[in-house]
């Protein structure tokens, strides 16, 4: 029984990691209706940002949040303004543009690092809490708390603030929102910036766990797509809950069946969900029709 409990805890902590990576992707998807293929690369930039802060000024990764997250917010705003906005009326081109961004960022980092695997040292990374035989890594616990805080903050933000309400209005109907005097371009920039900042946060919080490589973003992005589809396209809580579902499924399947099968199992769930409920558990009906429904 303690074995099962341990696996569930492992799965929940892993779910926190997945949720953290998926939240920014889902925000961008829900509002701007772009599948941002470069989201994993933004996470990767967050990781390297943490490394750079450590390398240049000896900063602990948890302190580098205050540099990396704002930097990625600005980067996200710039991407939206100068890359995606000019392609606003061509959704397919926007998707290709994010794919191009993926290749650009990956190869840029590759050229700079020559493919050496870096690790950010943090005193926190080796701390493990032992609660009645359950081993809880502090880094993963912090990631879990952070994703919960982000979900709470985001759902409060979109419900109770004017910029948040503007974002919701834009999500529901761009044309009507524009007629109401909402600056749609501005709302998009804010959203992409926030999505990139969330990716940066995920990168920094995960940097003490992984050995960085320029391709590491790709390892996260497949899982993030599954999380987003399962939890619900465009829903803040969808990414949160979806992360836990995928995390727990993976841990159970990996331990009790076979680690080689775990990805097959959650992709089966992914496909089943697409067939049964295309908008996901918490998604808005019709949200999956990205690029198909007329937007202007």
């Amino acid at each position, binding site marked *: 029984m303690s074995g099962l409990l341990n696996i569930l805890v*492992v799965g929940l902590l892993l779910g926190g990691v997945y949720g953290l990576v998926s939240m920014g992707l889902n925000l961008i998807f829900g509002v701007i209706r772009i599948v941002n293929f470069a989201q994993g690369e933004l996470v990767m930039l967050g990781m390297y940002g943490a490394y750079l802060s450590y390398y240049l000024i000896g900063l602990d990764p948890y302190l580098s949040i205050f540099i990396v997250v704002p930097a990625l917010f600005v980067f996200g705003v710039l991407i939206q303004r100068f890359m995606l906005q000019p392609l606003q009326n061509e959704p397919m081109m926007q998707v290709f543009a994010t794919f191009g961004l993926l290749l650009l960022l990956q190869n840029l980092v590759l050229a700079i690092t020559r*493919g*050496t695997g870096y*690790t950010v040292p943090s005193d926190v990374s080796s701390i493990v809490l032992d609660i009645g035989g359950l*081993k809880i890594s502090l880094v993963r616990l912090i990631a879990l708390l952070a994703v919960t805080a982000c979900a709470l903050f985001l759902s409060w933000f979109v419900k109770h603030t004017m910029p948040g309400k503007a974002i919701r209005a834009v999500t529901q109907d761009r044309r009507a929102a524009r007629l109401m005097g909402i600056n749609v371009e501005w709302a998009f920039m804010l959203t992409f910036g926030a999505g990139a900042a969330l990716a940066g946060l995920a990168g920094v919080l995960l940097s003490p766990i992984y*050995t960085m490589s320029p*391709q590491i973003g790709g390892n996260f992005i497949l899982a993030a797509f599954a999380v987003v589809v399962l939890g619900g396209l465009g829903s803040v809580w969808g990414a949160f809950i979806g992360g836990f579902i995928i995390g727990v499924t993976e841990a159970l399947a990996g*331990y009790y069946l076979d*680690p*080689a099968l775990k990805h097959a199992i959650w992709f089966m769930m992914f496909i089943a969900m697409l067939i049964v409920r295309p908008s996901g558990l918490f998604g808005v009906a019709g949200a999956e029709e990205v690029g198909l429904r007329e937007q202007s």
Partner: protein
Amino acid sequence: MIRSITRRSLMIAALAGTVLAGGALANGASAQETFKVGAINPYSGPTALYGDEVTRGYELAAHAINEKGGILGRKVEIVRGNATSPQEGIAAIEQLAGRDNVDVFIGTYLSAVSQAASEAALNYNKLYWDTNALAAGLTDRGLPNFVRSGPYSVSFADRSAEFVANLLAKELGKQPSELTVWIEHEDSIYGTSIAERQKEALEAAGVKVLGVGAHNFKAIDLTDSVLRARDAKPDVWINTGYVPDGNLLLRTARDQGFKPAATVFVGTGDTKETLEALTEKGVEGLYVVSYPRPDISEEFGPGSAAYLDAYRKAYNQDPIAPQSMAAFVGFKMMAEAVEAAKSADPAAVKAALAGFDKPEGSYETGFGVKYDDKAQNVRAFPTVIQWQSGKPITVYPVKAAGENKPLKIK
């Protein structure tokens, strides 16, 4: 109209003729002057660091050979062919064989590239000499232009099994039959083929294999793999994989309190990348089966210290990875084979291979040389290091270890 076309095409033909003749002349002249070796490795992309490192070994060997008069009386020149994928491997061969007219090819950090590139080289009837690719299938093909001078996946599997059954059993104060092992591997052909061979070899030695686990080297989480191994309570935990998954496994084992009496990594885990990820304390005692390092004893690998000096002098740093010394030795073996054949022709070189019979301990890496009927050198083996106070120290074979001793197992 007709006249003008004729005149123009005449001019173009004349121009092309001049260029071609000039090119042929230049090629002919340089082919006589130097012995060109096409070095096929990744010089860009995620494995560029290691491709460069392997080619550094070739450069050092070429330098040493040139000081003694070169190959077939010609000065050796290395031409780099960048290949990060099989397709690029083929393109690099075509370019180097066609444009640069190289005499032989040498490589390869990546087995998949070696596979495609050596077949492409056969079309030009050029020798493809492999010093570093590991896949067993490469020599199994029986390609008439392919020779491998370095250790391969089978040598890695056999050496790791022999190390566990001999040295580790002794260190743990157990008979091999009392020893239990969990074999973990990444799930591509690389890890899987080594793990299968390890299982056979360990069981043949009487060691009990409690289980075999596979994982994807890109996995976000490996706690399940670690818990399965931990719950089996093995004396020895063996893993074959790449750097990122290896580091994640070690971290997860630490977090989950999995402390087997000995942990043995195969192929990776002996570089700075692992030391930085786990810290000195985290890697202390970890064994890694890998290419022989320059710290092996002079008795085992004569000239290894001189190699290290030459490397430091040429590149102002210590070797990034141990692959370069195997590449260095492999290049020398290639030169010896071409000299013995008095030609770089693949058929002549292959025929000359039978004449080579040197015992282990003949080269800097401790390799000997004897080729089997598939042109695989069967006297090239990896060695085993142990991390001790932040340094990789060679501990096995005992002769290679010299004064070094493994840490006492608690």
